[in-house]
Structures are given as C-alpha cells and as structure tokens.
C-alpha cells in the first residue's frame, strides 16, 4: 500500500515537477507566515510602522491647503516626524523579520532599539511605544503587557495635560498634578522593570506583593491596567496550585490576544483616567466661562481644538465632556443592568405566570422605540442629568432582562441547581448564589457594548436639546454648536464627532473582544 502510494507520487513528480515546487513554496510561505504571526515583536513593530505611516500621511494631507496651494509648516513638521518614525519602525520590523525567519535569537542591540521606539510616545506615537516595549522584553507575561499599557496610559495623560502649558494660565493644582503624574510615570517604569524580573510564566516572586499593593493604590488615577496587574499578582500569589490556571485571568489572557479589543480597552481606560486626573490638571472655568475676546479661533497650540462661538476652549470642553459621557453612560447601563437583570433572572427561574407577567410588560416597553421613549420621559419631566439617566435606563431594561432570562432558563435546569434545590436551598439563595454568578459573562459583554450605545444616546439627546444644560461640556452639546458652523469652522464639529466615534468604537471593540474571550467555544 505504501509502495503503491510512493509509486503514484513518483509518477506525479515526473509529470509535474513545477507544481510540486509550487506546493513546497506555498508550504514554506505558510510556515514563515505562521512564524511571523507568532512573533509579537515582529507583529507589533509592523503594526507600529503601518499606524505611524497612516497618521503621517493623514497629517500631511491636512497640512496641505489645496485651494491656496500652500503647506502649513507646523503640521508638515509633525507629519515628517511621524514618517521618519514609520521608516524607523519599518527598519526594525525588517530586522526582526529576518531574525525570526532564520530562527535566530533577537540580538540585544535590536531589543534595546525598543527604547528608541518607546521615546517616540513624546510626539504621540503610542503604537511605537507599545512596539518598543514589546521588543525589549523576551518573555512577555500578561503582567508585563498590562504594565506597558499602564505606563502608556499615564504618559498619555501627562502629554495631554501638558498641552495646558500653552494656555494663558493653568489650574491652581496643575503643577501639583503634573509632579504627581511625573512621579507616577517613574513608578510605572520601575514597576514594569520589576515585573519583567519577578514575574515568570508559571511563577510569581513573593516580592511582588508590596508592589502589587502599590499598583492597586496607584489606580486612584483611574488606571485600570494598574489595578488589574495588582489583582492578578495577588491572586496568583494566593493561588496554591500552580498547575491549575485561574479562570478569569485566562479570560484576560485571551482578551490580550486581540489587538483591536486591547486598543479599545486602552482608549476606555485612558478616558476614565483622564476624567479623574483632569480634576487636578485642567481648569473647569476654561470649559464653561465665555471668553468674548477669543471667539471662533482655529486650532492652535493655545487652543488645540480651537474655540467655539462663546470663546470656550473646545479641547478642554471635550476633556471634561469625557467625564459626563462616561458617568452617564455607565450609570445608564448599570441601572437597567441591575433592574433588568433581576427581572430577567426571576422570569427565567420561575416559568409560568410570573414569567408571563414580567416578560409581557417588558415586551410592551420593548415595542416603544428607545430614543422616542427617552425623549418622551425627558419632555415630560424636564431636561436635566438625573432625568436623562432615568430616561435612557428605562428604555434599555427589556434588553438586559431578555439576555439574562435566556441564560437563566438554560441554567435553572442544570445539575448544580438541581443539587442545590435538593439540598433545600431557598429560591432566592439559588438565584443570587448560583444562577446570577453563572450568567454574568454574557451580560457583562452586553453591558460593555451598552455603555457605548448609552454615550451615543446621551449625545443624541443633548444634540436635540433634551440632555444636559447647553453650557455644560457634554459631547452632544459641543457637537450641536459645531453643527451650525460646518462650513465656516468645521473643527467645531470634527473634534467632538471624533471623540464620540472613538469612545463608541472603543467600547464596541472591547466588548467584542470580551465576548470572544468569554466564549468557551473559542478557548
């Protein structure tokens, strides 16, 4: 049989040597592609190259005034910097490529070049920063990757806050805030260094405990990455059996395999952190007080996103708008999550009359278009933040109830629930202790994406004049002003529009990644 096959193979070979070579080529190509794909160093530097090139080209296009055939020098310089950086990343990625393909160790000097890439964050090239630090460390544990993003978040906050230096004046607490943040960068870099030393794939050094506590404390700046490292380290230290992995850490691990979802998470964490740090480094009065001597100024260093028709700095308004959008978005998701979740759990657990009553009432609510319901509620009770949250919450209760009900219906017949029932546990104990924790995964995913939708609805309501008061810097409000200056001062609409787009995309990517990570079929 084997001989026969060999024969026939020979036969084929005689006939088509060329085709065989082609097949071999394809095989080699596929192997190479697999090798490259598995090298995080190569993929991240490649991504940094592409991203820097794209940013450079976009800025270059913006710097050219096609109508007047002139180039704005500042923008052109910035574009040039990005293009040079992309060339550098291209060089690094080519060197990495040859190293990976020839199965060579990545040389020490090549690893150290990562430091150069990391410095590029100073002109806002966050992709080079990630590529740089990814390149510098051979063994990349989850904690190390998290620490890259943690440091990046702090650096970005400092850079964004530093733009205030060009203003006429800064907030009274600005210097204090900046020194604290600078100290935090030092701490983050130190932590990154120590993590690379102490944390190995399977073992975590006992010395991590005090560092982990410090990291958790540093999360008051809203840096969720720091919080995650701290909790992961502590739970790993407390975890007895090293061979068994911890379920939720696995989920985060899988989450970090998806680049887009991690960028989404970074944007979300950055905005949370910015909203908290802006208490120190930004001056609220610049965002709400009219300045009649600085109206409708085009973007410049003092006003990075220009000023609106009341002379307020759009950049500062967007920074403070992040806080309102996130708070409203999260509250308007948390409230229906709790109410809808409870109703759904009860409906799913008790089939029959109770389920029918709850679900039919929710069906009626579901039949009313959510934005219409929100408009009706706000119109009836008046436009303010509390009513807005209430309005957005009520309309999304059925969505969460349905999701939970579906999961709970499956769970209520599971063996462990039967077992609990057989042991004589009361219904509400079963619901709270067994069913709800086991049905959390899908609802967390839905909630994450729901925040994005809630932010969008908040902005839509404000745009319609039914949201928060018009002078409060909410993204929808800022966009509303921009809408009447689309032709003459387009930046008034572009920047808040981008901000809304960015946060919604970030939550969607993050939620998408979370869904993949929690899906047992995709393990």
């Amino acid at each position, binding site marked *: 049989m084997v001989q026969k096959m060999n024969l026939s193979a020979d036969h084929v070979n005689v006939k088509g040597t060329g085709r065989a070579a082609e097949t071999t080529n394809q095989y080699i190509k596929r192997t190479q592609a697999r090798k490259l794909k598995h090298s995080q160093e190569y993929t991240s530097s490649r991504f940094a190259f592409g991203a820097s090139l794209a940013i450079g080209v976009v800025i270059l296009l913006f710097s050219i005034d096609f109508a007047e055939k002139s180039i704005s020098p500042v923008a052109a310089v910035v574009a040039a910097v990005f293009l040079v950086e992309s060339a550098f990343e291209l060089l690094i990625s080519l060197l990495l490529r040859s190293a990976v393909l020839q199965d060579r160790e990545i040389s020490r000097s090549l690893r150290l070049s990562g430091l150069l890439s990391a410095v590029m964050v100073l002109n806002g090239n966050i992709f080079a920063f990630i590529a740089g630090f990814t390149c510098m460390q051979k063994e990349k544990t989850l904690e190390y990757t998290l620490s890259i993003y943690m440091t990046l978040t702090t650096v970005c906050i400092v850079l964004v806050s530093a733009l205030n230096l060009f203003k006429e*004046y*800064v907030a009274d607490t600005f210097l204090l805030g900046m020194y604290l943040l600078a100290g935090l960068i030092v701490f983050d870099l130190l932590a990154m260094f120590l993590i690379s030393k102490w944390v190995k794939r399977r073992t975590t050094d006992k010395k991590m405990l005090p560092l982990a506590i410090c990291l958790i404390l540093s999360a008051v700046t809203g840096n969720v990455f720091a919080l995650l490292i701290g909790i992961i380290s502590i739970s790993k230290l407390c975890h007895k059996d090293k061979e068994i992995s911890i379920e939720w850490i696995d989920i985060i691990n899988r989450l970090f395999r998806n680049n887009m979802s991690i960028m989404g998470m970074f944007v979300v964490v950055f905005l949370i952190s910015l909203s908290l740090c802006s208490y120190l480094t930004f001056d609220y009065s610049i965002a709400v007080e009219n300045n009649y001597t600085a109206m409708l100024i085009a973007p410049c260093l003092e006003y990075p996103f220009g000023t609106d028709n009341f002379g307020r700095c759009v950049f500062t308004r967007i920074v403070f708008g992040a806080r309102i959008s996130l708070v409203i978005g999260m509250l308007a998701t948390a409230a229906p999550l709790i109410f809808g979740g409870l109703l759904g759990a009860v409906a799913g657990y008790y089939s029959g009359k109770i389920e029918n009553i709850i679900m039919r009432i929710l069906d009626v609510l579901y039949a009313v278009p959510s934005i219409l319901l929100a408009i009706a509620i706000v119109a009836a009770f008046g436009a303010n933040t509390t009513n807005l949250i209430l309005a957005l919450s009520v309309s999304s209760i059925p969505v969460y109830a349905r999701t939970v009900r579906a999961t709970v219906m499956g769970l209520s017949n599971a063996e462990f629930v039967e077992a609990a029932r057989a042991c004589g546990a009361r219904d509400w104990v079963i619901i709270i202790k067994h069913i709800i924790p086991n049905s959390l995964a899908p609802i967390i995913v839905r909630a994450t994406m729901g925040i994005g939708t809630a932010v969008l609805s908040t902005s839509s309501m404000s745009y319609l004049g039914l949201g928060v008061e018009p002078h409060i810097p909410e993204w929808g409000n800022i966009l509303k002003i921009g809408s009447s200056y689309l032709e003459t001062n387009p930046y008034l609409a572009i920047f808040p529009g981008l901000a809304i787009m960015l946060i919604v995309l970030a939550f969607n990517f993050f939620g998408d990644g979370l869904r993949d990570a929690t899906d047992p079929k995709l393990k």
Partner: protein
Amino acid sequence: MKRLTALVLCLLMTFSLFGCNVQTKTDVKGEGSDVELESIPLTLLGQSANEKDLNVIRDLLTQQGFDVTINMQPDRGSYMSQIDAGNYDITFTGWASISGNGDYATRGIFHSEGDSNLGHNIHDDRLDELIEEAATLTYEESIPLYAEIEKILIDEAYIAPLYVGTKVEAYNKEVVDGETVGIYAARAEPFELFDFVDESKRDTDTLYLWQIENYYTTADPIKSNENSTYMTNYNMYTRLVNFNDQMEITTNSALSRDYAVAEGNQEFYFILRDDIYFAMVDSNKQAVDSGVLVGGEDVVFSLDRAKDKDSVPNHATYSLHENIDTVEIVTDLSELENTMESATGSTILEALSDALDTPVSELVASKDEVDNASGKYQVVKITAKSAFPQMLNFLGHHSASILCKEQVEKINTYDVATYDPATDIAYGDPATVTEGPDYDNQIYASGPYILVYKNDYELVMQKNPNYMVGTEYEPKIKTISIKMIPDADSALNALRSGEVHMLNSLDVEKWSVVEGDEKLALKTQPGIAEKHLIFNTSENSVCSDLNVRKAIQNAMDQNAFIAVYENSVFPVTSPIGTIMDTGYSFTPDPSLVQGYLIEYFNSKQES
C-alpha cells in the same frame, strides 16, 4: 536601568523648568474679591430658540457670583405657561415696534393694562400716565415724555436692556436686481419694486422668495397678526398710507395721494387715487382685473370692520384700531377749505392738493363718479376718539388693509355670533386657496399682487394687472412664489442652489457663507428687534428687591452680546430706542454690581 534613570531625570528636569514659568489661575486672575458675598440663586427663563442669549446672560451673571439655573422651554406656549406659573426670576424677551411709533413701543409691554406686559410685572402709575399723555402728542412733542419713560424703566430697573438686532436681505444677484431690494423693518418687502436683472424674463420666470412658516392662516388681514400671512397680506392689499425703508409714513404705493392732519390731532384726511383696481382670480388660475375700482366706500367698510371687535370671529387686530371713532367720506369741499392743518398755517385742502396734477374741483361720494383727471376726487376722513397723532402709524399696519366691500359682504353671509368653521366659509379661508377639490379662490386683492393658490410647499402670487399702471409702483414681475421651508439651514441651501432667490432673515454665523458665494449678495441694516430682560417682581422672587434688579441690569455687559453676535447687534436702552432718539441712554456698568449686592445684603440683614 541607568539609561532609564537618566531619561526619567531629564523628564523631571524639563517639567521643573516648565514649572518655574507656568502661571496659575490665581497668578493671573487674583484671589477674587475681598468681600465674599453669598451667591443669589436665580432662575432664568427663556425659549430654546434663544439658547445663545441665555448662555451669555447666564455667563455674565455667574461672573458676578449669581447662581443661575436656566429654565428653557421649547416653544412660546410652554414659555407663557411658565410665566403664568411664575417659575422664573428673570426672563429673556424682546419687542419689535413694527408700527414705528412710541405708543406701540410702550403701551403693550409697559402699561399696567398692556396685553403683552409679561406676568404683569410692571405696575407704575407714573409710567401709565406718561404713556397715555405721550399718545396725545405729536412726534416732536412726545420725545421728552418717552425719554422720561425710558428713565423710569431703567431707574426702577423694570427692564435690563440688552441689544437690538440687524435686519438682513440675502439675494441671488445673478437673478434679482440688487437695486430693487430694500430692507423694510416695519413692513414686508414691497413686491411691486422687485425686478429681475434680465428684464425680459419678467413675464416668463418666477421669482422665488422664502418664509419659514409652512402654513397660511387667512387672507383676511384683520384675522391674523402673525408671520405666516405677513408677506402675502402686506402685498395683497393696499392701505391709506405705507411705511418706507426708513420706517417713515409715506403715500408710496398707497391708496392715498396725500394726507393731512387737522388741528387738534384728532381728524385725519386722505385724498384717494383712482388707478388701483381690485384683482381677482379667474377659472384658469390667472390673475385678472375685476374692473372694480378701489374707492372710499371700501376704505370706510374696511376700517369699520378693522376697529369693530365683532365684525368677524377671531378678530386679531382690533386693539390696534380702538382709537378710531368714525370713518366717513367727505363730500363738502368747504369743510376742507375751513379746517386748518396741524402745525402748519395752511388749510386741509391746500395740504391735500400739494401732490395733485389736477386741482380738486369736486368731492364725490360714490367711487363710480371718481375721475381724478377731471378733478373729481374722493376724500376720507378718520376721526379719533381723542387726540392721537400716532394714528397714521397704525393705518400703515397690514390690519388696516383695504378690502372690497361688495366681495367681502357677498362671502361673509354667516352670523358672527354663531360662526361654525366647519360649515361657514369666511372671506380668505385658507381652504379656498389651497389646491384641491375645495379650491374656490374668492379673493379680491387691492394690492400689487394676488394669491392665486397655495399648496404644501409654496404660496403662488400673480401681479394685479390694473395696479397703478404707468407709475413706478406698477408691479414688474408677473409671478412671485413664496417657498415655505420650515428650516433656516435648508432655506440657505435652497438660496445657494438657486431654488430660492431671496431670504429675509439669516443668522449671523451664516453671513460669511453668503458673502463667500460669488452669486449671492447680502444687505444689512439695524433692525427693530429689541431684546431685554424682564424681572419677576412678585414677592416670592428675589427680584422684588430693587438692588438685586439694579445689580442684574448692570451685569448685562452689552459688549458681550456684540461680541457673540459678531458685531451684528447694537446697544439699546429700551424698545423706544429703536424708533426714536430720546436723548436718554443707559450703558450697563458691571463694576457697579457688587455695590448693589452689598446694599441688598445690608438691607436684608436690617430687616
């Protein structure tokens, strides 16, 4: 590790260097005032259309330490219900003195009995007396009284003046002859003046205008005093007198050849022209000459019904004409010869004859006998209930339009007391001019144009074929259509695409768009749309205290509004300021605010 430390140190050093040069808010703005006053909570009421103004007012008050809450209502109805409920301390409002006289600028809003005295917050006997007295005086005599009214309004802080806006006309200069476009603050644009750049297109092309209201309420001018009928009704009927673009009374394109006011300012004489005939719409939806002359009988009929509250159901404008006592046709020439004109030494006959080609030989009672060329004229005399020189301004308002006596009497056969809109068809009913099965256009138009038909998108008007033929006021363009576009931004787009040829209002932020378009042009002129704040003077509002009102009044830095409106608005003292220069003026001084507030807190502590 060493390199890392070096980098960190470098960063730290850079930050420290910046730190030395950075100016903090306290460095620049100081620690704030020495006296820390308790902040006064204020509710500012307004409509969402005025969001821009409300924001500036809020900002100016917040700067002075007030704690402002904005109560923004989506429409006038809910705004008025908030006024009635007293849910405000200050409210943003305005007044346009569309008849260009002091009485209109004051009576409605500042008189105790005024129908537009918001929340009836202004109750001042001295103010009432002055308004009544000023009404009986001629323009020059009344100026000092209006100055005193302004002084009381400011001194007692009944209002906080803000600004007066600009009236604009944006037009397509490739289509419309710019010379024929004027800016009229006190009336709708006179259509009879408009002309195309290419005069050969007068009969073939349509001139497209715009109105924001996408409905039309009535062709009966006394039943409507709102914007949906403003352009149409002003141009569909003639009046005894008209306003020009300087808001002065003229006989341009009016039914009178001339007018005269008799001594005592109580009797008004008008000598009528004989070259205006009523237009009607024939069965082919074309404007044709009805052959009926517009004459004295029509004037008497029209003004009698204008002043009589019960002449029609839903009379909207009778209060403008409540000073008219009688309207009659004068047939006795000796009356004109024996009555002296006010202020001049001549007789009424001499005054009326100034502008005539043929001297008056006979005054006739019936319009059938009128023939100006042979000296046969009609003269109408209006007697006021008391001396009221400003009567003429109200006769220029569109509610004093001249309708056809026979036609209106023919249509309005219903009983006013038992009028049922479902069965009775009134003159000018919008259903009769709407395209469709109910279309039955019965309008007789005395003006330069007649409404031929309307649909959901436009009001189509055609020129009156026998209107002042041979004069400069003979309408030039045959068809004018008013597009009804309920959104100002879409209207601007329509202007730019050539779908509409002229806009009579435009937000200041869009001016640059029009100016940047080479086929468009913009004309601007200070308008009459004045804006001010009114205080809630009832006991439960903090604004019942004069010091608080004075503080708010002085906080309203008018330069802030001028800046926000990109220099398109002007300082003003009161609505009177838009129509006459009284010599009195007030400029808010924000530096006085804290002084008034300290006085308020002191007096509060004492009591």
